[in-house]
């Protein structure tokens, strides 16, 4: 036992393990931070590009009669879309199926298990 401990000590096992795991963790923690910042920056960029630009100063022009009529007509059409137009309003904003789910399902459909013996 003493001999084994001596061999381990001679190989500086504790030092190598500490430096090794420390180095790997340090690098990957930095990488984590980098990805985190990258994600934040990406989200910030998206929010900025989506936010509407500020309206120009000055009085808002009054809508004329034609515009008002059009707005009312659209509002009515939207309130009961399927009966009046036969087109579902939600069709245009329907949530897309998640790519992750689709990929997962495809992966599941692919055979993982090895072929059985003949």
């Amino acid at each position, binding site marked *: 036992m003493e001999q084994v401990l001596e061999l381990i000590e001679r190989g500086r096992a504790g030092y*190598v393990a500490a430096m090794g795991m420390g180095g790997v963790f340090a690098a990957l923690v930095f*990488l984590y931070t980098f990805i985190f910042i990258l994600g934040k920056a990406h989200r910030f960029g998206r929010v900025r590009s989506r936010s509407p630009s500020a309206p120009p100063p000055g009085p808002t022009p009054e809508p004329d009669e034609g515009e008002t009529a059009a707005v009312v007509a659209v509002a009515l059409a939207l309130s009961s879309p399927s009966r009046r137009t036969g087109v579902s309003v939600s069709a245009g904003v329907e949530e897309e199926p998640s790519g992750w789910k689709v990929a997962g399902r495809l992966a*599941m459909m692919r055979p993982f298990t090895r072929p059985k013996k003949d």
Partner: protein
Amino acid sequence: MEPLLQFFKVTAFWNLSWGNLLMDAIGVLFIYLAIKKHYEPLLLIPIGIGILLGNVAPITIAGKQVFYMLVNGEIAEGSGQYSVMYYLYFGVRTGIYPALIFLGVGAMTDFSYLISNPKLVLLGAAAQFGIFITYTGALALGFVPTDAGAIGIIGGADGPTAIFLSSILAPELIAPIAIAAYSYMALVPVIQPPIMKLLTSRKERLIRMKDPRPVSKTEKIIFPIGGFLICTLIAPGSAILIGCFFAGNILKESGVTERLAQTARTAFVDIVTILVGVSVGCSASAETFLTSRSLLIFGLGALSFAFATASGVIFAKIMNLFSKNKLNPLIGAAGVSAVPDAARVAQMVGQEEDHQNFLLMHAMGPNVAGVIGSAMAAGILWSILG
């Protein structure tokens, strides 16, 4: 009679040893496992062919001579009459092949999984624990530190990294280390599930993880550049592997070098895989491979793999203690970098409990982080022990 005897002496039978026959049987076993059981066929078939080639007796007299030509029955060492295998093995000896394989793997890798859930990176780090446990175990068994470091890297579950580090730290052990690494990579679906089930409860295996967010093209381009700088600044020894890995990924993600990326991830990596498999197999001649040290290396390799799997799972459980969005601890096992088998095993074990639980995409995060982690560990071991 005399001419007949003379002829017999130049056939393979004259110098064939029991060791050669045993190695031939191992080569045939590899080919069988690849064809019949589909265990890493792309690797096991070239290695199996290489083992057969390296153990044809007339060109393996005294162990290493498969790399030399026989001239009039004499080994032509030093005469410049090297065999073609000598030149092919050059890529293994100098670490060229592993770097080229990393370039191809980089061109195949999609970092979206990792970028969308950055904390998965830490699982790739935790799974490298097996490397250092095995390093200690190898020292205890009497290996010198350089050999122990090369043996420990088997726990990284990354064949090219194992070849790369052993070519630097323990060139005489390349064959057993590489064959152990590839064998255990092929056996990932057999080795990992019992450990994963032992360390997790049913409730934990049923955890469903949140769908990751979509990742933009800009993020995918910036990540490999930043990742390369971070990794190589901390462990310059990993620059060659990490550099090639991220370079391949930039080829893929840039969107303007699709032809290069396509070549790197198909024909290019396939050619190098054939060369590395045959060369490594060829170096496993009976005289160099059938030793007690090889058996110890195989034993330590299994230990290394088991510890790597366990440490990934345990670390995921620890992360769950502090995290609002729970991780399914099974994906921790994918931190060993056997891509994509370890991730598929996580998916398979998860679906044994819940058919609607799709863990594959989540497990790819730690899986690719494991590739980075094991290359980093190799770089650090090289810096300390080299």
